[in-house]
């Protein structure tokens, strides 16, 4: 033990004099190990770790496979009554539960939040072993057809929506005109399986009877993916055996009820049992493996580079090692000495890597929950620590081994005898050139690829949209009863709401219209006279919409309120579409035929806008919105805020049957729309910088190593009159060849990749790519220069005797 401590102490004494070395290795290994730990943990959770539910390997989703006659297409969906009947009568599964999901507004809450609702039969809670923080989950008295309005809420909803009210049990929650009594709060530890969609966690569980598809209860014809049946397979039965029994039972149920139906004539029923694990994993496994390969690749580059740096460090320690050898240190002991240093360096790296991995986990949970399932389970736990320990031990051993490989034990003794004037460390010149070559080839391709992706995403981010949404909110109303009122009833209510909202001190203006960021419908319009077809995205908007968002009218007159009242077939088109329709003249007055050949007259042309995330404008058109539209754009005065509660209070005054379905900041929506681009810019910039940094470390390691080997030569050249400039030129010239070869090979690699995937990659390459390539060359040149200069600086900035004597 003392020997180990002593060894570590000596290693630290030697290392502390080299803060640059500690920084370089810690930063390189820390960052890459952090990324690797993050991806490894994610991969472990997704691919290896069992789901956190009892008998998770026996939990399955039952998917009927219906193949209709004359078509080979298989539909995987249930008919509502078929599923209910099967659920009620089935005996092959140990347990089964029906599930459905939706969204609803919690009306009796001041903020009227929209919550993700889940509708389940009581067995569901037992199947996933749902732990409760308070109260209980559903029991048989809340089963199918019992119509008992109770609710179980998630821990998050209890915390955020009800401010962790300790009296929550027994409180009422009103959704769509039904008042549900809260009977339980799920425990914080419960991990939602997210069976409906990755990233959507159920906020409140309600009994199956209240599901939003119950209007399909008697419809055997309609197949839907809105609901699902899950079950626990008996331990002693195979998947096939269970599937066969279900198949028979389902065919017996379905066939009598679809006799005479054209759709199901000769239909074949099959059953697919999909384990929870593979359902939740979906098709993400490929992406995970790619990520893993990426992180491992990065780690490999970092390892090679750090090995180079450490090799140069060993060369530097040569004399010390020689003295140790002379004093009787065996090769094993020398390895042990090197291990002391590499272990400490790896420990420092892990100290950086663990917080980096934790940061990666929070990014996954915050931003990637919609992409990767189970991210809530990806935490800094024992498995990450175990991976970290493996990495520390493996790399410490690997680096010490590589270092010891560069020592020729016999040469060491000779080194000492010739007073340090010989050379004893052997990494051949060819090997060094190969290392530089591969380093530059890899780094230049990585930097270029990331640079191109960055510039593409950055261009999209910088693209002017052509409309202004500053200080604007989008309001969508929700109606608390089953049927929306008619247009005539709605018109005065919406007009009243507009007036009252505009009376709020923080509101500048309200326009009853969809927002520019709402989803546009698409239609294949036909121009009446030429018959030419145009694929157009269109939106229903009010007359004031264009003025509100600052989209200029180029030609013609916008439709008026009268047109909105009378649903007049008027249409406003953008100049992109106008140019295509009337190549030389004006499009105003032309007619576009829409669905059911309804003819819309073009009344005005507006300037095209570019939607966030797109590179160029598309054909767009705007038709008059009904005055009873339950959506509005609210423009706030500068620096003002409008909360959901404030809108709810106005709405309650106007008509308490309405609630706030959504109230979104348009700037936030735009940000979300542009999130992939923001993400791409950040990730590619980080990756490009990381590649550059790692390449710099690697090049520095190799050049520094070879410079140390050439110390006497450099000293001699200095002695016979070489100046600093001449020596820098010499080193640059010596290293230019492998660097140029590397750049050439990198370019070849890029061309090869392009040739393979020209169709996909063509979109990313343009005149900017040349600039990106020039920047890549410049950055590689700069790091090459730095890598050549820094190791030389220790000699050329001192009198020549230092190089000659190796001081």
């Amino acid at each position, binding site marked *: 033990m003392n020997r180990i401590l002593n060894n570590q102490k000596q290693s630290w004494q030697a290392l502390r004099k080299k803060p640059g070395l500690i920084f370089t290795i810690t930063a390189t290994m820390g960052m890459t190990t952090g990324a690797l730990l993050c991806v490894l943990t994610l991969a472990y959770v997704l691919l290896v770790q069992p789901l956190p539910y009892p008998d998770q390997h026996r939990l399955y989703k039952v998917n009927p496979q219906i193949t209709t006659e004359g078509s080979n297409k298989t539909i995987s969906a249930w008919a509502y009554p078929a599923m209910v009947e099967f659920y009620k009568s089935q005996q092959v599964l140990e347990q089964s539960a029906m599930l459905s999901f939706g969204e609803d507004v919690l009306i009796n809450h001041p903020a009227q939040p929209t919550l993700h609702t889940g509708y389940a039969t009581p067995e569901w809670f037992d199947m996933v072993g749902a732990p409760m923080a308070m109260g209980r989950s559903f029991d048989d008295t809340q089963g199918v057809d019992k119509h008992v309005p109770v609710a179980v809420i998630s821990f998050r909803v209890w915390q955020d929506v009800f401010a962790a009210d300790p009296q929550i049990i027994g409180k009422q929650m009103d959704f769509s005109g039904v008042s549900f009594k809260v009977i339980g709060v799920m425990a914080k530890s419960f991990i939602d399986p997210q069976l409906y969609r990755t990233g959507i966690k159920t906020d409140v569980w309600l009994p199956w009877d209240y599901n939003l598809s119950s209007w399909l209860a008697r419809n055997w014809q309609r197949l839907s993916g809105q609901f699902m049946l899950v079950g626990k397979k008996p331990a002693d039965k195979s998947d096939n055996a269970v599937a066969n029994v279900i198949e028979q039972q389902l065919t017996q149920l379905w066939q009598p009820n679809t006799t005479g139906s054209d759709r199901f004539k000769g239909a074949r029923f099959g059953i697919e049992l999909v384990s929870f694990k593979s359902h939740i994993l979906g098709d993400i496994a490929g992406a995970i493996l790619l990520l893993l390969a990426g992180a491992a690749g990065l780690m490999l580059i970092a390892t090679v580079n750090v090995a180079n740096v450490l090799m140069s460090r060993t060369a530097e320690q040569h004399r010390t090692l020689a003295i140790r050898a002379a004093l009787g240190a065996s090769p094993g002991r020398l390895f042990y000495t090197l291990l002391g240093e590499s272990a400490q360096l790896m420990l420092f790296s892990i100290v950086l890597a663990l917080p980096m991995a934790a940061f990666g986990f929070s990014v996954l949970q915050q931003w990637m929950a919609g992409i990767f399932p189970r991210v809530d389970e990806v935490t800094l736990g024992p498995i990450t620590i175990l991976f970290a320990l493996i990495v520390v031990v493996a790399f410490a051993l690997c680096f010490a081994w590589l270092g010891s490989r560069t020592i020729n034990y016999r040469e060491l003794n000779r080194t000492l005898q010739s007073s340090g004037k010989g050379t004893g460390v052997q990494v051949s010149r060819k090997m060094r050139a190969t290392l530089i070559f591969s380093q530059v080839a890899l780094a230049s391709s990585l930097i270029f690829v990331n640079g191109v992706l960055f510039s593409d995403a950055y261009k999209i981010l910088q693209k002017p949209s052509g409309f202004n949404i500053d200080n604007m909110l989008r309001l969508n109303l929700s109606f608390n009863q089953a049927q929306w009122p008619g247009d005539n009833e709605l018109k005065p209510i919406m007009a009243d709401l507009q007036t009252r909202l505009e009376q709020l001190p923080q509101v500048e203006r309200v326009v009853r219209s969809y927002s520019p960021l709402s989803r546009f419908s698409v239609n294949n319009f036909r121009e009446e006279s030429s018959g030419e077809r145009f694929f157009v995205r269109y939106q229903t908007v009010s007359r004031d919409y264009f003025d509100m968002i600052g989209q200029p009218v180029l030609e013609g007159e916008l439709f008026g309120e009268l047109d909105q009242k009378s649903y007049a077939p008027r249409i406003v088109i953008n100049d992109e579409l106008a140019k295509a329709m009337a190549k030389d003249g004006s499009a105003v007055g032309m007619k576009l035929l829409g669905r059911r050949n309804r003819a819309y007259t073009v009344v005005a042309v507006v300037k095209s806008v570019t939607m966030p995330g797109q590179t160029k404008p598309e054909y767009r058109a705007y038709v008059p919105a009904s005055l009873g539209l339950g959506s509005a754009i609210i423009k706030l005065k500068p620096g003002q805020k409008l909360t959901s509660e404030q809108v709810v209070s106005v709405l309650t005054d106007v008509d308490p049957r309405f609630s706030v379905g959504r109230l979104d900041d348009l700037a936030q929506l735009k940000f979300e729309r542009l999130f992939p681009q923001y993400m791409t810019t950040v990730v590619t910039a980080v990756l490009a910088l990381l590649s550059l940094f790692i390449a710099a470390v690697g090049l520095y390691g190799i050049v520094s190593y070879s410079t140390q080997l050439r110390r006497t030569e450099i000293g001699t*050249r200095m002695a016979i009159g070489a100046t600093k400039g001449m020596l820098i030129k010499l080193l640059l010239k010596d290293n230019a060849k492998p660097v140029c070869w590397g750049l050439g090979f990198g370019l070849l690699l890029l061309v090869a990749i392009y040739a393979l995937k020209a169709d996909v990659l063509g979109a990313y390459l343009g005149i900017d790519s040349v600039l990106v390539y020039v920047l890549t060359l410049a950055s590689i040149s700069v790091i090459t220069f730095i890598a050549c200069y820094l190791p030389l600086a220790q000699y050329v900035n001192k009198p*020549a005797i230092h190089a000659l004597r190796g001081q």
Partner: protein
Amino acid sequence: MTDIKIQMKNIAKVFETEEVETHALKDINLTIRQGEYVSISGPSGCGKSTLLSIMGLLDVPSSGEYYIDGVEVASLGLSEAARVRNSKIGFIFQSFNLIDELSVFENVALPLRYALEPKSEAQIRERVEQCLEWVQMAHRISHHPNQLSGGQQQRIAIARALVADPAILLVDEPTGNLDSKSGDQIIEVLQELNDRGTTICMVTHDPRYAHMAKRQLHLLDGSIENSDVLMESAS
């Protein structure tokens, strides 16, 4: 023009570490004239190599004045010192310090390549061949150092030291890495060069070779103890 090649006045060199201050050279006053052959000898650690390093502008003195061909060089910058080394000083090292990757020709030509006023290839070749003739190594012009014996390598090193026609040859234990026969031959070459007018200052601990010099300096604890022939005090 004066025939004084090297003049040192009150040169001192102190090595400082955190704890110790070592006075490697103390108050050295030394003049070497054109055509002189001076040897510096003394026990190990007396400052011989330090003195030679300062003389060759490989190191800087802590104090004192130093002139080469009448030009003050004690406080030159690194690049200027390199220029002076290139044009005025020829070095011969104990371990030859030839560059393995370069041929004999390129090794010898190296100082000319570093010269401020570059020479034509033909001039370089002519001069290199001439210097190799002097050391009787012209027949090895295309070889590489590792194909030569130690004695031959040292001859190449001497040719390299001569190639830029320096004011003085500084020779550091030229026989230290050689057997006695080869060592004797090298000393003979140096003697011939001196006979032809080359100024030489040689550090050696071998009394036999020290006595070959016309003037012998003895260093002890960083000071010149005595000079067997002419010793000029700086005035």
